[in-house]
């Protein structure tokens, strides 16, 4: 049973990393949002599986939160924003997709090396989980760094947060209140960022954050 549970957890966490790489690969806004929803669904599955094997019913709540907020509400909201702003086609990457993918693969390798070495002697399930979670966090950061569009930066941020939740659920005994507060903070971040997107758009007719830099004050 243990081997099987481990394999399934491994499979789900691994798929999350894979979907993170998929996120990096997308060059259309609507596709990006779909993949992000898939990311959140996989997270919900993974957390649910953890709840099952750890016998921790409160993790089901976490899974439900992930499913409802991150797989349905936030992607839905982002879709509306994208439609309203009429930017469902544009994605401007800073460096080429291929280079970004290579960097992403390197980051996954780095996360594996660091985590497997740092957690030597820990529970193998938690080890793998943490290594995958760190990869997802790094990939999320890479996404935020390598995109110019504010919406895709939001998506990068959300996927980064997914990685954090994955890491947290892998560790046994995380209290529910932490989960809920994290979920809320993400929701609030989403709302704030959403409002800001509209404000930016109103002012500058674009959500390219480069436009913000032009009003960043006088340059030394």
């Amino acid at each position, binding site marked *: 049973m243990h081997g099987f549970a481990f394999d399934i957890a491994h499979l789900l966490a691994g798929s999350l990393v894979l979907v993170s790489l998929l996120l990096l690969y997308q060059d259309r806004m609507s596709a990006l949002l779909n993949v992000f929803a898939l990311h959140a669904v996989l997270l919900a599955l993974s957390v649910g599986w953890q709840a099952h094997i750890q016998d921790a019913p409160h993790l089901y709540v976490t899974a439900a939160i992930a499913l409802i907020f991150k797989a349905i509400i936030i992607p839905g909201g982002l879709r509306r924003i994208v439609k309203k702003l009429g930017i469902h086609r544009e994605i401007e990457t800073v460096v080429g997709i291929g280079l970004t993918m290579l960097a992403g693969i390197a980051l996954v390798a780095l996360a594996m090396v660091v985590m497997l070495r740092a957690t030597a002697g820990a529970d193998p399930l938690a080890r793998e989980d943490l290594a995958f979670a760190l990869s997802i966090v790094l990939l999320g950061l890479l996404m935020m*760094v390598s995109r110019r569009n504010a919406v895709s930066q939001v998506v990068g941020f959300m996927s980064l947060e997914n990685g954090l939740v994955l890491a947290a659920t892998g560790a046994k005994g995380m209290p529910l209140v932490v989960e809920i507060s994290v979920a809320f903070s993400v929701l609030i971040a989403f709302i704030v960022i959403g409002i800001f997107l509209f404000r930016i758009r109103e002012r500058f007719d674009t959500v390219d954050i480069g436009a913000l*830099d032009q009003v*960043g004050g006088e340059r030394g």
Partner: protein
Amino acid sequence: MTMAVVSELACVGALLALGALAVALARFAAASRLIYGLSFLVTSVACVVAVLALAAPASEIVLPLGLPWMGAHFRVDALTAFFLAVVNFGGAAASFYAIGYGAHEEEPARVLPFYPAFIAGMNLVVLAGDAFAFLLSWEFMSLTSWALVMSHHKDAENRRAGYVYLLMASFGTLCLLLAFGLLAGADGGYVFAQMHAHQLSATLAALVLGLALLGAGSKAGLFPLHVWLPMAHPAAPSHVSALMSGVMTKVAVYAFIRIVFDLVGFPDWWWSVVVLVLGGVTAVMGVLYALMQCDLKRLLAYSTVENIGIIFIGLGLALAFRANHMDGAAALALTGALLHVLNHAVFKSLLFFGAGAVLNATGLKDIEKLGGLIHRMRITSTAFLVGAVAISALPPFNGFVSEWLTFQAVLLSPQIPQWGLKLMVPTAGTMLALAAALAGACFVRGFGVSFLGRARSAAAAEAQEVDRFSLAAMTGLALLCLLLGILPAFAIDGLAPVVQGLVHAQMPRQLGVAWWTVVPIASSRSSYNGLLVFLFIAFSASMAVVFIHQLASRIVRRGPAWDCGTPSASTATQYTAGSFAQPIRRVFGSVVFRAREAVTMPAPGDGRPAVLNVSMTDLPWDVIYDPIRDAVNAATGWLNRLQFMTIRRYLTLVFMTLILLLLVLAIW
């Protein structure tokens, strides 16, 4: 027995209350007299209490202030009591002087509130019994004195002085903070008693010594950390200059003694080499700078640097003897240093009062424009002359006694086993002698050019003697210079408990010796009787006057009218400060100041006068401070770019840092 510490703290509280009162009253014309008068009373009481506490056992009190688990410790032991006496004596003298002098202040509201607070701050530093109280008071002292330096802020030079002072003060506090951190160790025993018990490894102890030299030395004015001192001290009103030069530098000396002699534990012998070198260089450089100055107050400020060097030579000697368990000799050297602390507080206050009086009477600081003041300001001139003789270490005044004691300690150096010290101590002694001789030249120049001869400007020709309070303060200090010089035994015996507490030995008791003779080691070796010297000088000088009057003055002589060595009627033909300093500048200046002289001769037939240009550079600025400033400027200019990056670049920066750290972790 906590009487002493409680009453000292009460005095500090009264001074702080005076500061607050001054804020409320500064608009009224009478406020100046009231505040200075009350400050005089409070500091006098504090001084008397401190003198009485000299021989009393240590007392300590913990106030529920500051850190909740520690409180604020205040403590009076013999060392504290001595420095409290010096601080409050200087404070009382300056306050009394300022009752008269303060009336000339243009903007009293800028001086009055900070003045009592400054004295309170210095008292608190000395009273502090833990590192937090100490550093807090230290910063308070620095800030209030900075405010006083900036009281004449309309002058751009004063603003620059204030800026440099603030920078150096912050640097000094940082060093002291680190020193206390090391002394407290990992357990965080920040009370001085805990630090005293805490044993440091040799490396850490040496580090503490270095930090104490930097931290206390920057406040005291050790070369090359002295650069702020000649800028800031003259910028303040004269009575504050007297406090800063005469007293605040002593608080820094206290900090050094407290850390190095008390808290850090037993010294290594090579520590003394460092202290001796720094002290010697400071003494010689300070007086050389002083010799080149034309601003009277700046000259006095540089002379403070010199005297701090002399004090540090004494402290270095004490360290050298103590490291070799020669406790009697250490006591002698330390007594010399502490006595010089007291003496310098007395005569430097006197000299700054004199400079303030001259400034008040003439509005001039430049000695090249003064001259002939001895005819117009007789009492000020006499008092200034006494101060000048005392600071030049000439008998029968007090400066001689402390330097003589230090020399006696130097003469004991052949008994030291280490060859490094055997060579170093006489070198330091030579530098001390050189500094003393140059100080003599410096004050002959300072006094002679400003007070003797004929007035070089209308302002100097029409100078009027200053008010009674100022005169009384100066006369009192001048008398004290004489008293401490002819009866030093009282001061030396008074210092015995202080020295006993620091090096566990003391000088032989002096008051029992017949005719108040000072016998530092044994009467077969050396002794000094100030009273005898004074009587001899007084007698021989009066006899000389009588003989000259009787034999020479009556004889009729014929000569050119009004030609006393200056045949021209123009005052410009007199010996000037510049011409007096020129030979010394020629000897030392080319190396120390990189002085260059250039004569521009007009072509024959050209009517213009020839011009002699002397350029001097300040070595510490060129070698240390300017490069540091350039480096900081370059670094900030470079960092400034970080201020204007795009959001994505900020994220990239964070991301890259994270990746870099992870890589380090992976490769480690």
